[in-house]
């Protein structure tokens, strides 16, 4: 048996063992399953630190060192570090200077909100509204689909309209529309559930196939 085959066999054995330990959850919560959970979390965190160090901390530190003779560039490089340092007072117990951390956090949230609002309006809201009112073609099925789409949007939105008294005539109209919208929502949730079911069955199949393939490999 070659070296590569041995490595493949051992790595496969580890993977199969971990998979079976995860499946042991079927018998109830047990230490073996929890061990695999902790192993996964620990590996993820350790790997995340390695990525952050190699891709963020180290390159930016080296960039500062190379810009030592360039004051303007150096200042720009130091701004992120300065903002990061302002977060540190939150670590100490007395919190007297913790207000300093509000500055970078405010910048972070402000930029994030601006990006989200701008992106949502241009990238989601306008295209979705435009797509909800499609031009109907000559195909009857397409016409029915377009009408159903508009109807579904209206009745589903009416389900979330709560500010009209049901005693009024318009309130009763909204109430009836909301009932239909509720069924649209239920059908949509059914689609979500079906999608999730397919995903998990595929994952189960893939893991079982992996185990069977690994077991079959030594047998040829």
């Amino acid at each position, binding site marked *: 048996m070659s070296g590569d085959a041995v490595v493949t066999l051992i790595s496969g054995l580890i993977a199969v063992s971990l998979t079976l330990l995860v*499946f042991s959850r*079927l*018998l109830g919560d047990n230490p073996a399953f929890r061990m695999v959970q902790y192993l996964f979390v620990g590996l*993820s965190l350790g*790997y*995340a630190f390695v*990525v*952050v160090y*190699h*891709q*963020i901390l180290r*390159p930016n530190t*080296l960039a500062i060192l190379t810009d030592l003779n360039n004051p303007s560039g150096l200042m720009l490089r130091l701004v992120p570090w300065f903002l990061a340092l302002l977060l540190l007072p939150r670590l100490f117990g007395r919190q007297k200077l913790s207000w300093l951390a509000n500055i970078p956090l405010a910048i972070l949230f402000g*930029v*994030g909100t601006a*990006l*989200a609002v701008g*992106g*949502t309006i*241009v*990238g*989601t809201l306008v*295209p*979705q509204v435009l*797509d909800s009112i499609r031009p109907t073609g000559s195909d009857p099925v397409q016409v029915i689909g377009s009408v159903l789409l508009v109807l579904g949007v209206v009745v589903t939105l009416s389900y979330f309209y709560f500010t009209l008294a049901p005693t009024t005539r318009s309130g009763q109209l909204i109430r009836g529309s909301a009932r239909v919208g509720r069924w649209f929502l239920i059908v*949509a949730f059914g*689609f*979500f559930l*079906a*999608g*999730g*079911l*397919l*995903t*998990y*069955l*595929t*994952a*189960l*199949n*893939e*893991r*079982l*196939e992996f185990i*069977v393939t690994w077991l079959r490999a030594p047998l040829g």
Partner: protein
Amino acid sequence: MPAWLEDVDAEPADSAAPAWLQTKDEAPGKASVDDAPAWLRDETSATTSAGGRAVPSSDVPPWLQDEEDETGLSSDKDANLAPWLRGLGNEPESPQIAEPLANLSTAESASDADDTFLEGAELPRWLNPSEAERPVPTSDPVPATQLDWLKRLGIVDSDSDSVNIVEPILEQGTRRPPTVRKRSEQQHTDMALLASIVASPYPEPVAPAEPLPPTRWQRIGVERILYSILVIALLVALIIPGVTAPLQSEVPISPEVVELGILLDSLGDEDVVLVAYEWAAQRSAELRPLEAAVMQRLVANRTKLILVSTDLQGTLLSFDLIEPLREAGYNNENGIPLGGRDYVLLGYRPGGDLALRQLAQDLRGQLKSDFDGNDASQSLVANNPDGTPRISTLDDLAMILVLADEAQDVQSWMEQVHRAAPEVPITFLLPNEAQPLAQPYLRLPNVYHLAGQQGALALLSTDADSDSATIAAATGQLSFAVVVFLVLLVGGSLISLRTRPGRPKGDDS
């Protein structure tokens, strides 16, 4: 100055008081009195006469006349007083009220003498009163107890330390305080109940009845049995592929999949595709086949690639692509590495939406540092062989390919990247779980998608060289899993209905 005051000035210097006052102090004298005003004269006369002579009081102000007449002689003059003052001076003091008041003053004096505030405290010797100085407690405690307003109101009986009704100590005929009320029968009953509750101890705790030990089937549970059956059935189907043969069929290929296949086939070695790894390993069962199906087409055409990720796990998964690319000759010429010739691995870009926005605004700027820190903006991926830039903006890309495991990834890429280059085709590879949520974006123009294992199989089916038997086996296995799951779901529901304890009669809820 009035005349009577001038006379005063004329008095001898040794006299400090006015003459009329001196007269008053010394002895009755008519001369000085005559100089005083009429109303003062009357007063002086009344004072000096000592009751011997009734002075006419017509010159005195009416209110003073009334005050003078304390013996009831002027009762007919009350008409000049305010109504609330009439007869006030004539009211005789009631002996019935005077007696408790006298008792009260006695009690106060006794309380002062019997100051026991520091009694019992360990005081220094100089603060301790001697035995002689120590006040002797009064023999009659009744006045002291009368000071306690609670006891006077009859709420607390200090002797018995219990809630009780004590008759007011005010004697008969005196006015009762307005707060004293007789308790109703209900209040008496409640008080008796409270007293009995306080007096009676807690009842002995009754040990709950021992639950019946669960049976073997109950300990295992229906759910575990159903899960086990599902796993065993899938294992059997994998070991014996013939089990799924009836369910093996061709994968339905939608027109969109065909269109995507044509688009992928049309890419050449001069085109650049931006590939984003935004998925985590838990979705590898679906995204690995999708990745393999698409990358197979791209690698076959030697399309240039830029690999990037804003997800930490996605970065790790993108590294897995390096070895297959090298084996396919990417950045590799007979074992000699040629960095940046066919692909650039940018690695992790922190910031989420912010990183995507930077990518959309300045793609070439992002190429200045790959995952090793090397400047990839001078590579053949970013430049043509003649040195002119091949990639400056997103519009220079032939396609954007996003491997996403959540609908939020689709939203971010659509909002931050696709809106910056709406003419560039963007393709999403998704798990089945995320597809319904991302559906609104997937209907937009220039947006393609493949979802789940079926999507990968459908794309593979469009390739003439694909292994149809493998595709059919995979389709059959997945269909078999769905059928078994549905059968178990229905069976489990029936078992659950049969074993569910019945509702008590009359419970309509």
